């Protein structure tokens, strides 16, 4: 199947007082319709900045997309005018955030906010837009959608608000949904409900989902493919199944080993990754992971390793493995 979203060589920098922060460097990936791609990494690895770059929501200045292309069904989003991009956001590519309370307008009812989004993109009457809002709330399995549409965000629980956000994001049937840590602020039983919902809607509507998360458990549950980011770069890419079974980059190996798992031996130590993520304005010359890597050799400290195929359909950026 053809990719609906193709990102190539995306590079985003921020000009700050401490220097140029390279938030995203040369990141490429593609997502097919109806597929879930996870972008995985720890705080500061550039996964959210990648998402915001796709949506062209990087504050400029200080931020700037300096290179790359983002093709959505053939159109390069980075080449569009701001007005052109506004037409794409919501109708073609939509985003949901970690904390729905900060993304929703507290002064407007949920129904009104969804209707507004629909009438922005489609030439329909107010009544029809309102009806669509109720229909969307029903589709995200909110009970009593007519009543809920008249409620304000603060009257809803966290899980309910995230459902409302999803309803809004999908109201115009975008081709791509970017979900940035959509369940991180939710309790685990609610997280399971919301992940199921996103997964079901992906299947029903054929939406391509880009799921940004730090939680390897969530990735294993819902993602078909994944990319791993470290210090602004993509370091590994492949099918979720393959990457969990046979991680090639020492960073992903370390991450997987440091997740506490059910049924571990009594008193067993977790494998941790020593040290901390380097600051993005002061990255080492070679591989950014080298200072924390147990397998690092001379080449790792001199030159950034290229992404190369290590197994069929599985690439990684590492000089050693």
């Amino acid at each position, binding site marked *: 199947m053809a990719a609906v979203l193709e990102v190539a060589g995306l590079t985003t920098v921020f000009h700050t007082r401490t220097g140029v922060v390279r938030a995203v460097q040369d990141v490429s990936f593609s997502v097919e319709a109806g597929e879930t791609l996870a972008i995985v990494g720890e705080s500061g690895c550039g996964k959210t900045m990648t998402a915001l770059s796709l949506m062209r929501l990087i504050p400029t200045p200080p931020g700037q997309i300096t290179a790359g292309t983002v093709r959505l069904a053939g159109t390069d989003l980075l080449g569009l005018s701001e007005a052109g991009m506004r037409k794409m956001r919501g109708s073609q590519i939509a985003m949901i955030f970690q904390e729905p309370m900060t993304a929703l307008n507290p002064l407007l009812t949920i129904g009104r906010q969804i209707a507004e989004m629909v009438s922005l993109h489609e030439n329909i009457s107010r009544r029809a837009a309102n009806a669509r809002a109720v229909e969307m709330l029903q589709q995200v399995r909110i009970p009593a959608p007519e009543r809920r549409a008249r409620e304000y965000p603060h009257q809803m629980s966290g899980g309910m608000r995230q459902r409302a956000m999803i309803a809004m994001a999908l109201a115009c049937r975008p081709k791509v949904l970017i979900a940035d840590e959509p369940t991180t602020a939710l309790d685990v039983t609610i997280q399971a409900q919301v992940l199921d919902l996103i997964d079901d809607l992906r299947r029903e509507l054929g939406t391509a989902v880009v799921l940004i998360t730090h939680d390897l458990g969530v990735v294993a549950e819902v993602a078909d493919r994944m990319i791993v980011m470290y210090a602004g770069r993509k370091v590994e890419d492949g099918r979720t*199944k393959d990457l969990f079974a046979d991680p090639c980059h020492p960073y992903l190996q370390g991450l997987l080993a440091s997740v506490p798992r059910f049924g571990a031996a009594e008193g067993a130590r977790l494998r941790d990754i020593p040290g901390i993520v380097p600051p993005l304005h002061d990255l080492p010359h070679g591989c950014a992971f080298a200072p924390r890597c147990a397998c690092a050799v001379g080449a790792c400290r001199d030159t950034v390793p290229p992404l190369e195929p290590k197994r069929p359909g599985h690439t990684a950026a590492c000089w050693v493995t």
Partner: protein
Amino acid sequence: MTMLLEVSELRKTFPARTGLFGNVIDRVHAVDGISFSIAEGRTLGLVGESGCGKSTVGRAVLRLIEPSSGSVRFEGSDITHLPPKQLRALRRRMQIVFQDPYSSLNPRQRAGDIVAEPLMVHGIADAAQRRETAESLFAKVGLQPRQMSLYPHQFSGGQRQRISIARALALGPRFIVADEPVSALDVSVQAQVINLLMDLQAQDGLSYLFISHNLAVVEHVSHDVAVMYLGRIVEHTDKATIFARPLHPYTQALMAAVPVADPAIRRDKKHVMGDVPSPINRPPGCHFHPRCPLVQDRCRTEEPALREVQPGHRVACHLA
């Protein structure tokens, strides 16, 4: 086994206020009559979702908030009504580590002073000895003594949590309440802090009340596990039993909902529906009944008692 901490029928309610004059309209039953004990050198994991009252338990046990009723015994003596002066002396024996290492450290204080402050507050040792103690505490939690002159913002999240732990250890406590100590940390760093807490327990025989919403972390650090729902313990037993054979439908639902970091195991999609009800307006009978897949008529009216279904395995469910 000697019990270090014994909590019996602990209750804490907060007034729920509303309106212009803050009239008390109702009461929030944050902790509703819970009992447990922790032996020397052991860890009790207290699990539950937001609003279940687990943090309130941690604070009430240390008397950082006053329990509404019930009793807390520490090292054999009742501390529930201890006057403030004696309570302060007791603080040397019991300490707390908070979730957020960003807000629990004074940003204007140097790391070394943060760690030495408990010694100063309690009038232990002179300045030179305090410095020496702080140095050894820094080494103990895996920080460099030369980092003592730095300020909190110069440390990463994981290092800040190490500072909090060093501060908690300064007075040589026997018991530490760890309230979501790794929830704000990245997974690779989370593992460092969990390992540190477990090493400290092995070295010094500390006891922990480990409060967390993360079941996998709790399974890793705990000897015993208690699951809370809306202010009550619904299941309590040793770690191996609760993870191998959970009996309460809520415990089962909680475990089924945890995403497993293994794509070969895909969850079956039988999740509990609905949200956690408000602790002000709790459902009658078993509080879990509106979400329970096995609900029966008596669950709607009759409150299940927490009873021992097998030796050492307590469950609050009519069906267990």
